[in-house]
């Protein structure tokens, strides 16, 4: 049984490592900031900002082909300018994540990319389904080992040569 528990300990360790790497990636590449945080932090590098495109704010500048809109979240509004690939998902009253930098001189957010909401809660919930599967396997394996031990100790049963080696 010792080897059995060591193996399962190793598996739990690998599982925790995958969770740690996933969390690290989420914090680095996925977790968005609110407009309020972007205004407060004034980060130099590109940031991800989540908010809803304000109704009536979306328009296209014919001279520069830039998309101009306001992103709102918790009553805070930020003007955003986007010039990139054709934004299929850019619509009014749609919650989006814009990736870009805050232009302090122009007092607007310059977006280089537009993404949908991460919805990581759903993803985590879906992957958590693997935990009952692992528990089921653990219980089965443990039961098999206990049964082998019980049969081995039973004086009624004489195993074939080499069966339990």
């Amino acid at each position, binding site marked *: 049984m010792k080897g059995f528990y060591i193996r399962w300990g190793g*598996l739990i360790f*690998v599982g925790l490592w*995958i969770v740690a*790497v*996933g969390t690290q*990636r989420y914090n680095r590449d*996925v977790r968005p900031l609110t407009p309020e945080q972007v205004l407060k932090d004034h980060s130099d590098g590109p940031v991800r900002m989540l908010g809803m495109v304000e109704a009536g704010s979306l328009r296209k500048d014919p001279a520069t082909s830039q998309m101009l809109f306001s992103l709102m979240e918790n009553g805070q509004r930020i003007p955003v300018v986007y010039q990139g690939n054709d934004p*299929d*998902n850019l619509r009014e009253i749609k919650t989006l994540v814009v990736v870009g930098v805050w232009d302090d001189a122009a007092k607007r957010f310059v977006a280089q990319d537009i*993404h*949908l*909401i*991460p*919805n*990581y809660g*759903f*993803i985590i*919930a*879906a*992957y958590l*389904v*693997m935990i*009952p*599967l692992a528990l*089921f*396997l653990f219980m*089965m*394996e443990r*039961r*098999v080992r206990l*049964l*082998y031990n*019980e*049969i081995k100790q*039973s004086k*009624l*049963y004489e195993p074939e040569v080499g*069966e339990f080696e």
Partner: protein
Amino acid sequence: MIRWIRKYEGWFGASGAICIAIGLYFGLVASPPDSYQGEVVRIMYVHVPFASTSMTAYGVLTVASLWYLWKRDPIIDNLAHATAGIGVFFTSGALFTGSIWGKPTWNTWWTWDARLVSFTILLLILIGYLMLRTFIEDKEREARYAAILAIVGAVDLPIVHFSVEWWRTLHQPLSISQRGVAIAGVMLYPLIFMSVGFYLLFTYMVGVRTQMLYLQQLLEAKKGRLLGEVHL
């Protein structure tokens, strides 16, 4: 057969775990989000393997049931019984993950879609199979009736598979078919790793559960013999 399972099961388990670990890394960390679904597309890497493995599980159950009716080998019956138990887990997993994926993409946890309904019927057939096995006292009759139920229930397999082609459904059509592969390579590789990992894991789990059922019967038989000796 039990000796063969004991000898090779570890390889299936270890290679399955490695494939799943690689698939999880690529699926959750390395692969990009989908342009329409965003990050939610990552549910595909767990939902599709669950679904395809549950279909395979029912296929194995059908073959094992036919084999049992032909040879009447109790270990083959143990194999079929084990496959049904594991199949319930994988089929439930496919329905749960599909439901979770459906909420952000279809805005509903459930819809009366041909694929979803036929898949739920598959789960009900598997549960019915396991329930039937608990109702019958005589082991030989239990195995025979269960095998017949499994073979009759196999009619649902092509319905599940082709439901997205035969009917207008909300569920997307087959991504890998004779028409070609409708998934980008960068998303296909994690899916392949996860699917292969799930198949190997399923094989390993069936091996473990087959042993468990065999050993339980063996122990019951030995204890039965002991009681018989005591009463005599």
